[in-house]
């Protein structure tokens, strides 16, 4: 990035916001169309005809909606969490990519929250989960992990929104000065009159650091709490103490893979090749490798704990997971999440963009499968054989899963046209300070 000037970064980022090609509109129209057709239409169909439209029934009362909920919450985990950790450890390679990673967190959380609504038979009573005085004199039960979820996800959504917004204020101000019309009004409001004074930078640095410190334990708690939705039940294969770290590692793993996918798209289609480089893919590849090893270890522990318990129900659940109806999915997950990421041992692989994209998508397919198996294989093999059953998602459910990806894409496409996708001031921090550049000698080499 040595040949870059401050003004180049400014121009590139402003251009990515104000100049919109027809390809963008086609992509946005397609994403909105698929969202309406595959997400909202089937959902309204399900609301009209009842939850029977979904494949869930006894004993499988939890299906792909909850698997999707865990998946999207998991995908949200690397963005803000990784950004906070790298901010506190002063890792400069974070600076070009963290804004988009944080946006990924925000939109994944929104999609995850929507899945809670989709899973509910009567989502118009969702406010019953909130503590407010009402004529029924009814209060939510804060001993339930579902209420832990409401608190944790609400806090995480609030924290992530504030974190991405705070970090963007200086960039909103920079874009404000280069835009006109409605955009100028919008950025004037969003930048709150930021001027970039020494006092403002000082306050922002402190506030941002405090937020990072607060958000790291929050992010860890969110997926731990999601895991307790399952682990606090007495269902065989779910009632395990390893579940909280298992979910947290899985979440960071799938989130990191998600970041690789998003970085690839931004690099290729938003023309950010100068900012998102091989270094980012190399570092993300190393992270993926470490996370895949930890994830594989925890999977081994989960199997071992089940086997070592000596309980016949646990053995049955284990047997069913490895060799039962859903076994092909289990082995697909092992292939995608435990074996394929070993390719990241090779630097050549880590610095190759297309192979890394393929791996990141494979990891997330594997991670979706993991979430499906947690819900799918456990509820179908509970204590009594007459309560056993097999669950296959209905067309409505499959369509809503597809639509959720379109919903995420729609939100992200809107984001790239409002937020500067690359943090301008932080990329500037990674460059040579003006006035200290190497001076060219008469022979043309740097002195």
């Amino acid at each position, binding site marked *: 990035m040595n040949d870059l000037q401050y003004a180049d970064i400014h121009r590139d980022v402003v251009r990515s916001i104000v100049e919109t090609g027809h390809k963008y509109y086609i992509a946005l129209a397609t994403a909105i169309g698929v969202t309406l057709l595959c997400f909202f239409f089937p959902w309204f169909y399900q609301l009209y005809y009842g939850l029977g439209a979904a494949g869930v029934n006894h004993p499988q009362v939890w299906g792909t909606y909850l698997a999707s909920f865990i998946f999207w919450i998991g995908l949200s985990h690397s963005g803000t969490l990784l950004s906070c950790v790298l901010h506190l450890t002063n890792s400069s390679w974070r600076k070009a990519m963290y804004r988009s990673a944080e946006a990924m967190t925000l939109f994944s959380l929104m999609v995850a929250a929507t899945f809670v609504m989709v899973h509910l038979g009567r989502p118009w009573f969702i406010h019953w989960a909130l503590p407010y005085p009402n004529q029924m*004199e009814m209060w939510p039960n*804060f*001993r339930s992990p579902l209420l832990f979820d409401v*608190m944790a996800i609400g806090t995480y959504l609030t*924290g992530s929104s504030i974190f991405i917004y705070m970090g963007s204020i200086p960039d909103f101000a920079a874009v404000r000065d280069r835009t006109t019309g409605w955009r100028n009004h919008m950025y004037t409001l969003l930048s709150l009159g930021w001027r*970039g004074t020494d*006092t403002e930078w*000082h306050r*922002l640095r402190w506030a941002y650091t405090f937020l990072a410190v607060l958000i790291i334990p929050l992010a860890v708690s969110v997926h731990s709490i999601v895991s307790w939705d399952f682990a606090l039940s007495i269902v065989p294969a779910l009632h395990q103490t390893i579940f909280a770290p298992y979910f947290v590692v899985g979440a960071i793993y799938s989130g990191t893979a998600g970041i690789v996918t998003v970085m690839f798209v931004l690099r290729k289609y938003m023309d950010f090749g100068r900012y998102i480089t091989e270094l980012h893919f190399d570092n993300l590849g190393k992270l993926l490798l470490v996370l895949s090893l930890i994830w594989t270890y925890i999977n081994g522990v989960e199997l071992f704990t089940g086997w070592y318990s000596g309980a016949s129900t646990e053995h049955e659940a284990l047997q069913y997971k490895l060799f039962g109806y859903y076994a092909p999915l289990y082995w697909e997950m092992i292939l995608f999440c435990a074996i394929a990421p070993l390719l990241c041992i090779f630097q050549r692989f880590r610095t190759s963009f297309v192979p890394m994209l393929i791996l990141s998508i494979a990891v997330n397919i594997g991670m979706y499968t993991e979430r499906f198996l947690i819900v799918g294989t456990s509820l179908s093999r509970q204590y009594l054989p007459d309560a056993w059953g097999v669950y296959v998602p209905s067309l409505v459910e499959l369509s809503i899963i597809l639509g959720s990806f379109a919903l995420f894409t729609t939100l992200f496409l809107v984001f790239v046209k409002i937020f500067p996708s690359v943090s301008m001031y932080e990329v500037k921090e990674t460059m040579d*300070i003006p006035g200290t550049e190497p001076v060219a000698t008469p022979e043309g080499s740097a002195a």
Partner: protein
Amino acid sequence: MKNFAVGLFHAPQSALAAAGTLKGAGFTKPELLSPLPIEGVEEVLGEKKSVIKHFTFFGALLGGISGFLLAAGTAVLYVHPTGGRPIITIPPFLIITYEATILFGILFTVLGFFISARLPAIRERIYVPESAVDKFVVAVACDNDEQFKRAETILLDAGAEQVRELGEEA
């Protein structure tokens, strides 16, 4: 109307040196406007203290207390005995307490940031759009023309590319 001498610099260290000289010459609170945080500002312009940490601490404390009271209060208002266990059950309520601690900590940190950084800006203040792109700006208040001339000389001597006179509503 208050007048300011505003110098635009290419290099942050020149701007910082100019701000230090202005401060030494008796000008009150020279202000630096920059596209990114500048290292070493506090050594030149004096240590800055922020009240944000107090907001974070007391916000988190308030959140913790409120979270526990919320969980315990709702349990008492809607009594739901389970297996002879206490109505106010500590382990699950600690989770609510933990989340509320963080939530209030975050919200109060933001509040502290806005108050201490004086944002959102209610009135017009000295601003140079180039400072958001690639210029480092030093702005200093001048009471009269003589002071402006002195400030202009200091800024130009320190390497300012140009000096402007800007006004701000008092």
